């Protein structure tokens, strides 16, 4: 028997994204990319985006990382495809708030979308960084692009 907290951490949707990551692989053409690295464990994520008029036209990733990190990256690409770079910051904030919230705070999966499945990570403080790594990597692209704009 696998305990409840593990089931919550590795929900079906997380396992599915880990096994069949969406938007995986470096595209032939992209306008921006960034690499995220967790020196504590060696997890590595590369994010590739094609920006058009401040919108994410295409987004993909590659990783050598754990299930949590990989699933988080995969869900991120699905959630943000076609979104504006402003939306990136907003969604990333939501994720951070979710992961750092009280472990018993309830999450409305219906309204939040698939990535809310990451809520199970809250009970595993050592793994929060894994879930955040892809989002931080994408935010680095955003920071670089807004520097260009200024």
């Amino acid at each position, binding site marked *: 028997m696998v305990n409840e907290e*593990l089931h919550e951490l590795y929900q079906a949707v997380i396992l599915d994204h880990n096994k069949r990551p969406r938007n995986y692989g470096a595209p032939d053409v992209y306008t921006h990319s960034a690499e995220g690295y967790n020196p504590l464990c060696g997890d*590595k994520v590369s994010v590739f985006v094609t920006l058009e008029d401040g919108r994410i036209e295409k987004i993909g990733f590659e990783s050598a990382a754990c*299930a949590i990190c990989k699933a988080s990256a995969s869900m991120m690409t699905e959630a943000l495809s076609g979104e504006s770079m402003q939306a990136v910051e907003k969604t990333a904030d939501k994720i951070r708030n979710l992961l750092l919230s009280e472990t018993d705070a309830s999450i409305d999966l219906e309204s939040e979308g698939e990535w809310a499945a990451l809520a199970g990570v809250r009970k595993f403080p050592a793994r929060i960084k894994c879930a955040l790594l892809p989002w931080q990597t994408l935010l680095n692209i955003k920071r670089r692009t807004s520097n260009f704009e200024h």
Partner: protein
Amino acid sequence: MSLTKQFDYQRVRADFPILSTEVRGKPLTYLDSAATSQKPLSVIETIDQYYRLENSNIHRGVHYLSEQATDAYEVTRTKVANFIGTTDADEVVFVRGATEGINLIAQGFVESVFQPGDEILITHMEHHANIVPWQIAAQKTGAVLKVVPVDDQGVLDMDAFEALLTEKTRIVSVVHVSNALGTINPVKTIVEKAHALNVPVLVDGAQSAPHMPVSVRDLGCDFFVFSGHKVCGPTGIGVLWGKREWLERLPPYQSGGDMIEQVDFEGTTYKGIPGKFEAGTPHIEGVIGLGAALDYLTGLDREGALQHETALLDRATEQLSAIEGVRIIGTAPGKASVISFLMGDVHPHDIGTFLDADGVAVRAGHHCVQPLLKRFGVPATARASFAFYNDFDDVERLVEAVRKMKQFF
């Protein structure tokens, strides 16, 4: 009464209070001793008693407590010397750990040995602590870092070692037992070959000192370092042992109080060895705790402990290998009680979290040997390491948890 006495690991387990605790509602299965060992009650009580009854600064005090503390501190030097098979306590320098021991030597060589074009020889299976200090030393002096390759089993390529060892080599620095692979390196042979060219050898004993009886005299090495916390002692204390002629030749490491003979604004003279390497108030509690740890270990049947660890390793290796999808990294013959493994395409972090839910503590990650894991084509592994206080139930719980995980992912 039987003449061949079995190592009584059940009795030994009772010496370690933490081993009877529970984590996450399960009995603790501690398989991370290569990261740090657990502490026997005698070490915990010695430190407690030091602060309750003996706390005082050492050297220069003329009062009762200071004399007591100084004695306890200095007697540990002799215990350390005996523990590593030698007698001259002056050759024992207290440092923060194996890492600081290597840094001390690397820095000493920067100041008084290395010239541009000199070569430093290490191996592909070194811990970052035995790579980075030499990289920095090379950058500072124009010396060149050379690396002995490792084969697919995790065994050093000794032909390559001989080819890389030249008249330009100024030091060989090699790990005794690999923390990630468990490989036990032929240090004695390495020393013989290096000495034939007058090259000194530093042995990183962080993993060997806890695992097997070590004699620096028998190894013949010039420097030997190990960490207190891996030999059942406290963190923050470790040992650099060096041959007298080398320690006398090297300059002081840090400077300040306690390492001097006389200070004058016109100039300062330093203490002899080992004092010149120990500036400031040292980690007195750590040294005294280390002394208790070495007392504990030398009171054990160490050969029996080694055989017991090997029996645990063999059982775990056999049972893990029988699980389809498990791949063990590091299969050198006669290795120490460490198993680095992968399970299908499950990432080692997920393995670590999964096993932890069953109270099984293993390490997951790069184990501070990134170049080595790169050589094996993996970014990380899960690592189970066994100490003499583990038992066969621990092996069973590990194997059971891995089986369960296989079904889950």
